[in-house]
């Protein structure tokens, strides 16, 4: 205050007019002052008719109204500017009064109706007066408080609930274990040993004699964290299966042509995809089923390898590691292997197998399972109880053998039961023989067009026998050339051919034999066809032979020959057809037509000219016609004189 320069304070009068807008350059636009009529209209509009209607709240509303007004003022101003001023200053007042009158009338009517209590009744409506009365800050605070209270209550309840839920879940788990155990019990054999529950996986009760104990242990699954979410696949019951039965297994049966290197043996390991879980079945059930399957596969393999060692055959069966190798036919190898995979091993072994072609014979695998079950059943039924009861145990039928004086064949029937291996080898032989027969016929059919060969396989066949009907026909002449119909009964070691006329020929398993046989039949067919054709064409068969003893020797079968004469006897056709040498067709002309024949001194008379003349060979390959029989028909037609 003593020294320093005085501070200048500039004072500006407050603006009398209201600023409407401040432009960007700072120029203020003012609202033009209201005219008298406008001012009146504005004031008249301010009259709040809603205020006076509830008289009870006059006092508190009076105070708040002032503040309200203060606040509302700028908005009102703006509103005035926007709306066009009314034509008449009291217009709004009049409107308000009118509506008030209407409301009063309505209220009066309502009250009079209520008085009657016929149509309407008044009920008190609860209202929180404080909410409206207390200032907003208080409201906020109180609301906050009550909310906090409510939250606390809810939290307490939630805590209690979660506790009880956890408890009940624990109980349910306990109960679930029992129900699961009950289910397990209904499907598997269980027994209690000490404080453990042991189950039986083995097929012993079904007649198996396999000495694997096949027990599993039932475990209560308790290692689950209560706080964490329980996984969906959680099961309170778990089973512990023996480690050697884990994973999946199957028996692979295959037939190979040549024997692989000995060093390569025993390494067969193919893995199969895990079986897909059926919906609704428990995890333990799948686990047990898989283990049981492994056990069964092991039993099959053990049985087979035991038999392989015991059975004496010309070529001994080889048992190496998880593979049994047998030679059903020379140069052929049947391998039966046990493929057992553990889950860990699976990953790094599965890939290389993909490249190999799958020669697995599923039929034989299936039959092996069937055979072992038959074997089980036999074990069960063979141990029937003796009658009278004092007699010793033993197969019932063998007990009869002594007192009934059974002879050798009868006893053999009783005693000789083929082993699994023998049966499966027989089946494999049959399967191989059947497929090779099919291949032989097919390859002949595709290689040789004339005559045609057809094979009709029967749908139903035995494991050791199946049959096929082979027809040899000429295209276009199926109706007349039906001479060769063969029934091939394919057995285990040999093929029996039954001719249409009942002749039976046995062929060995050698492929060549069947092929040669069919070739010779096809060659015979041609000559048979000519015979049939001659009948249709009216030619006469002079001679016919299926097996000609003359001429060059065929390497396969015999040549067949036929000679037919034209209806008037002038011409003769002689055909010789061999499976290897092919056909040779000769035509004999009447002597009279032979020009190059030297005139004989002896045969002067004209009647001699009707004698048969020399033979001339027909260039068969140059003959027109799509097949042998058609060519022959043309030839016959050419040699038959027109009537």
């Amino acid at each position, binding site marked *: 205050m003593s020294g320093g320069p005085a501070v200048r304070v500039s004072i500006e009068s407050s603006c009398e007019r209201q600023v409407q807008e401040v432009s960007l350059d700072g120029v203020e636009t003012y609202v033009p002052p209201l005219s008298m009529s406008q001012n009146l209209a504005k004031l008249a509009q301010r009259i709040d008719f809603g205020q006076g209607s509830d008289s009870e709240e006059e006092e508190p509303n009076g105070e708040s109204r002032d503040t309200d007004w203060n606040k509302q003022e700028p908005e009102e101003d703006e509103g005035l500017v926007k709306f066009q001023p009314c034509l008449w200053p009291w217009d709004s007042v009049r409107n308000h009064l009118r509506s008030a009158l209407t409301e009063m009338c309505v209220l009066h009517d309502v009250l009079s109706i209520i008085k009657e209590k016929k149509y309407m009744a008044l009920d008190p409506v609860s209202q929180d007066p404080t909410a409206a009365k207390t200032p907003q800050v208080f409201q906020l605070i109180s609301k906050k408080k009550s909310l906090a209270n409510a939250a606390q209550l809810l939290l307490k309840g939630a805590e209690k609930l979660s506790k009880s839920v956890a408890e009940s879940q624990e109980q349910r788990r306990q109960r679930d274990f029992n129900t699961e155990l009950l289910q397990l019990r209904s499907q598997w054999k269980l027994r209690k040993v000490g404080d453990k529950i042991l189950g039986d996986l083995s097929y012993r009760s079904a007649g198996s004699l396999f000495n694997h104990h096949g027990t599993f242990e039932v475990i209560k699954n308790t290692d689950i964290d209560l706080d964490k979410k329980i996984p969906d696949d959680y099961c309170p019951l778990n089973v512990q299966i023996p480690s050697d039965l884990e994973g999946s297994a199957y028996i692979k049966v295959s037939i190979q042509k040549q024997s692989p290197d000995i060093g390569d043996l025993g390494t067969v390991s193919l893995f199969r995809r895990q079986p897909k879980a059926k919906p609704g079945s428990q995890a333990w059930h799948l686990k047990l089923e898989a283990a049981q399957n492994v056990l069964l596969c092991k039993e099959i393999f053990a049985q087979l390898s035991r038999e392989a060692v015991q059975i004496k055959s010309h070529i001994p069966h080889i048992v190496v590691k998880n593979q049994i190798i047998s030679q059903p036919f020379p140069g052929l190898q049947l391998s039966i292997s046990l493929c057992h995979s553990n889950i860990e091993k699976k990953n790094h072994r599965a890939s290389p197998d993909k490249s190999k072609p799958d020669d697995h014979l599923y039929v034989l695998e299936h039959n092996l399972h069937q055979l072992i079950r038959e074997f089980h059943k036999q074990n069960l039924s063979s141990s029937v109880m003796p009658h009278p009861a004092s007699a010793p*145990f033993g197969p019932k039928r063998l007990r009869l053998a002594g007192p009934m004086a059974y002879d050798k064949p009868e006893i053999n029937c009783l005693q000789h039961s083929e082993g699994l291996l023998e049966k499966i080898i027989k089946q494999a032989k049959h399967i191989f023989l059947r497929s090779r027969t099919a291949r032989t016929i097919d390859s002949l059919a595709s290689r040789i067009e004339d005559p045609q060969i057809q094979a009709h396989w029967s749908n139903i066949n035995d494991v050791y026998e199946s049959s096929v009907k082979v027809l040899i026909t000429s295209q276009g002449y199926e109706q007349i050339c039906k001479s060769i119909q063969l029934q091939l009964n394919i057995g285990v070691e040999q093929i029996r051919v039954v001719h249409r006329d009942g002749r039976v020929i046995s062929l060995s398993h050698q492929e060549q034999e069947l092929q040669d046989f069919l070739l010779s039949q096809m060659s015979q067919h041609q000559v048979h066809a000519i015979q049939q054709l001659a009948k249709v064409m009216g030619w006469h068969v002079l001679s016919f032979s299926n097996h000609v003893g003359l001429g060059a020797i065929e390497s396969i079968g015999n040549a067949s020959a036929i000679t037919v004469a034209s209806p008037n006897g002038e011409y003769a056709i002689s055909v010789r057809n061999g499976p290897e040498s092919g056909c040779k067709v000769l035509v004999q002309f009447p002597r009279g037509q032979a020009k190059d024949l030297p005139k004989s001194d002896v045969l002067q008379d004209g009647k001699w000219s009707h004698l048969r003349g020399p033979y001339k060979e027909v260039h068969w390959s140059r003959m027109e016609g799509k097949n042998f029989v058609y060519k022959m028909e043309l030839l016959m037609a050419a040699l038959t004189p027109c009537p």
Partner: protein
Amino acid sequence: MEAPPVTVMPVTGGTINMMEYLLQGSVLDQSLDSLLHRLRGLCDNMEPESFADHELVYLLKGQQGNPFILRARRSLAHPTAPWHLRYLGQPEVGDKSRHALVRNCVDVAASHSLPDFLNEMGFRMDHEFVAKGHIFRKGALKVVVSKLSRVLVPGNTDNTEPLSLSYLVELSVLAPAGQDTVSEDMRSFAEQLKPLVHLEKIDPKRLM
């Protein structure tokens, strides 16, 4: 103790020197069902089978010594089944350590002409009875629970009278001589039948 058979002549076939190991006991008729239940649980997985047999006991009296006894049995339920002819030797004495009675045993299955044939051989029928009951099996062990009935009119098996109010329970094993381990198995099996039935080593001689 019976001497092992000396083959004075060539024996063409048959199993020589088989031994029967036997434990016996009895249950009252009332407790039969619970015993059968227990046996069904213990024995091999087979439907329990009932039987009805007719047994004839034949004696051949020699000039000296004990008569020779043969038991011929036929099944009434399976009339076509062969007869069963059985020779049982004297129980081996001594050897307290063994848990079962052991005796020599020859089982012969024979044709239906057996009674006539035995008569022709000089055997005479001493007594006959009908045994009806159930038979169980566990491995080589045979359990026979049977009711014995007296035959009132000789030869008529329809007319019988029960001998007692209880069932005879026999646990037996056939084994070649010298396989004494089976008696151990029998003992443990008999243990499992307690207290329904007490199977013991009973010497038939002492009862006579």
